[in-house]
């Protein structure tokens, strides 16, 4: 006798218990702490904060630990928590020109005011696995110098002074900033919403999209005007206080691409901009973002938009890894009811096919065909 499957509730509880056990791994191995994750896997924390849209190293580290190192799962945990937080308003725009830079490079000029600063980078490391890191590695004390008081103006500002690059659009006073986590997205979308979407977007997706523009799918001739990484102050104007109150400092990476020019009969030609910004240190993300931002400006700059990276509906609808992973992975949920409906239809079609085939090959039909 057949008994319908029951006990799903027990199965779920048991699965979660097993997951917790697996997450801890061999209990003879020391448990990893949030500080260890934050300090030693710092770039993973940066990525989770960026794509999770929440600047909180401790919560991001917790999410990484809870997700067993699966960064998309960790981003999802942070996003779901963020969605429950009350929203007080938007901060004042941060001034990246006043950033306390730890790293700053420009590909467009040999030297720039404030200098090129390599800072902590994988660039020029030879990618040879280093056995000394396996255990007990104590790094040398880094070279240090007096903190420089020389200002580090943005390369795009230097170009802008001569009118060589389009001016950065200034927000109208009191204009509200769009927020696609609070309002439904409609197309065409303005650049504030596009940039928000890209800032939350999956690093791998943006990397592939940005790469595709370099290979000719929406080429926009980019130069790295500047990449800078360091600390900026965040300020907030509270309505009842009436002036900007500092909230603290955050680490940001900013990439400004300088792209091929535009111009018209009434406007002198000038370079155009692509912009990327992310929490923490994330050059791959911000460079990709800047390439895609520039590609998505095709319509506004009067260019033909034929490539995937120039198609805002395509890019914005598929950049979010929390959405994408949910929908791809939902295919593992039971679908046997709709499958049964397909199965029934397929059997019917096959049966009709077999009957038609049999009729066509019946002796009478063969004979007629032969005549």
């Amino acid at each position, binding site marked *: 006798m057949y008994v*319908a499957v029951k006990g799903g509730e027990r199965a779920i509880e048991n699965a979660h218990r097993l997951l917790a056990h697996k997450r801890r791994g061999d209990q003879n191995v020391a448990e990893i702490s949030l500080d260890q994750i934050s300090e030693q896997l710092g770039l993973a924390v940066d990525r989770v904060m960026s794509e999770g849209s929440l600047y909180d190293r401790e919560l991001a580290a917790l999410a990484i630990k809870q997700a067993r190192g699966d960064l998309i799962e960790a981003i999802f945990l942070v996003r779901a928590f963020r969605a429950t937080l*009350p929203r007080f308003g938007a901060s004042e725009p941060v001034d990246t020109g006043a950033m306390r830079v730890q790293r700053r490079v420009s590909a467009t000029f040999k030297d720039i005011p404030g200098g090129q600063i390599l800072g902590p980078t994988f660039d020029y490391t030879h990618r040879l696995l280093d056995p000394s890191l396996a255990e007990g590695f104590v790094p040398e004390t880094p070279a240090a110098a007096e903190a420089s008081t020389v200002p580090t103006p943005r390369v795009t500002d230097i170009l802008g002074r001569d009118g060589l690059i389009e001016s950065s659009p200034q927000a109208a006073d009191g204009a509200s900033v769009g927020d696609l986590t609070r309002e439904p997205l409609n197309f065409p979308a303005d650049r504030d919403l596009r940039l928000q979407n890209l800032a939350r977007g999956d690093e791998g997706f943006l990397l592939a999209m940005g790469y595709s523009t370099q290979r000719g799918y929406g080429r926009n001739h980019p130069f790295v005007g500047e990449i800078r990484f360091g600390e900026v102050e965040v300020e907030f104007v509270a309505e009842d206080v009436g002036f900007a109150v500092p909230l603290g400092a955050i680490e940001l990476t900013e990439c400004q691409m300088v792209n091929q020019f535009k111009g018209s009969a009434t406007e002198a030609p000038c370079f155009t901009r692509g912009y990327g910004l992310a929490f923490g240190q994330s050059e791959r993300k911000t460079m990709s973002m800047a390439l895609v931002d520039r590609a998505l400006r095709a319509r506004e700059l009067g260019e033909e938009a034929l490539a995937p990276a120039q198609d805002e509906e395509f890019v914005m609808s598929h950049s979010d890894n929390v959405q994408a*992973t949910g929908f*791809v992975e939902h295919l593992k949920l039971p679908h046997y009811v*709709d499958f049964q409906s397909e199965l029934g239809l397929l059997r019917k079609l096959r049966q009709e096919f077999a009957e038609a085939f049999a009729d066509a090959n019946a002796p009478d039909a063969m004979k007629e065909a032969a005549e």
Partner: protein
Amino acid sequence: MNAPAYNFAYLDEQTKRMIRRAILKAIAIPGYQVPFASREMPMPYGWGTGGVQVTAAILGPQDVLKVIDQGSDDTTNAISIRKFFAKTAGVATTTATDEATVIQTRHRIPETALHASQVLVYQVPIPEPLRFLEPRETETRRMHALAEYGLMHVKLYEDIARFGHIATAYAYPVKVNARYVMDPSPTPKFDNPKMDNCPALQLFGAGREKRIYAIPPYTQVVSLDFEDHPFEPYRFNAPCALCGAENSYLDEIVTDDKGGRMFVCSDTDYCEGRQAAGHHGSLSAAPYKEKAHG
């Protein structure tokens, strides 16, 4: 650390107001997809976040909630969502269709006829019935605005030319109140007739795609078809092996690796109710291959 504290039914009040306003417009414009600012929920997109947000916005302490997936109350995702609301809203839950005031469903409409004091909430993956014909939102929105549905008829007719039938077996498109073509969610087309002139309010939530739509009670819902190829609901050529029901939607159970099959009701509450009322099936009906069960 910021220890989280959650509101009744999880969503904050501002979010509920936004969803509630969208629901009212959805009811006022039957079959039209209202955009809403879907929130990130603590469960994955594609796993019922739209349905969960709609349910969370309407649910109150007086409600009795039923959650089904594939017609069953005991599938893992149904259990997970039911537990979510039992925990965050403290509502009573049930598996009995006629006791429920709110029923959240994925892929089925219960066999037991719904009544006027019930709300059926569907989880919807892709709310746009034209999406498979035209991927661009800007285009499909224009087509709905002009009620320009020729493309859909062309697609259905191409099926007929190729297969002799409309080859859509689930998520079969319907026209609501003689205006909007609507996706009924991936329910089997067997369930389509239940949507027509239904006494219960039907609400549809698509979280990832950020759309809410509705069919008010007693509203005309017509499955798209052609005069020479009328809509035919899917029929099984065997009764349920457990309760003997002849007009319910059946799951095919593979009983061995030698072609053995049996067919039982997908709606487990309906099936159990019939068995409790003394109805019995063959327990071993296998229309494709006879097999004795030990």
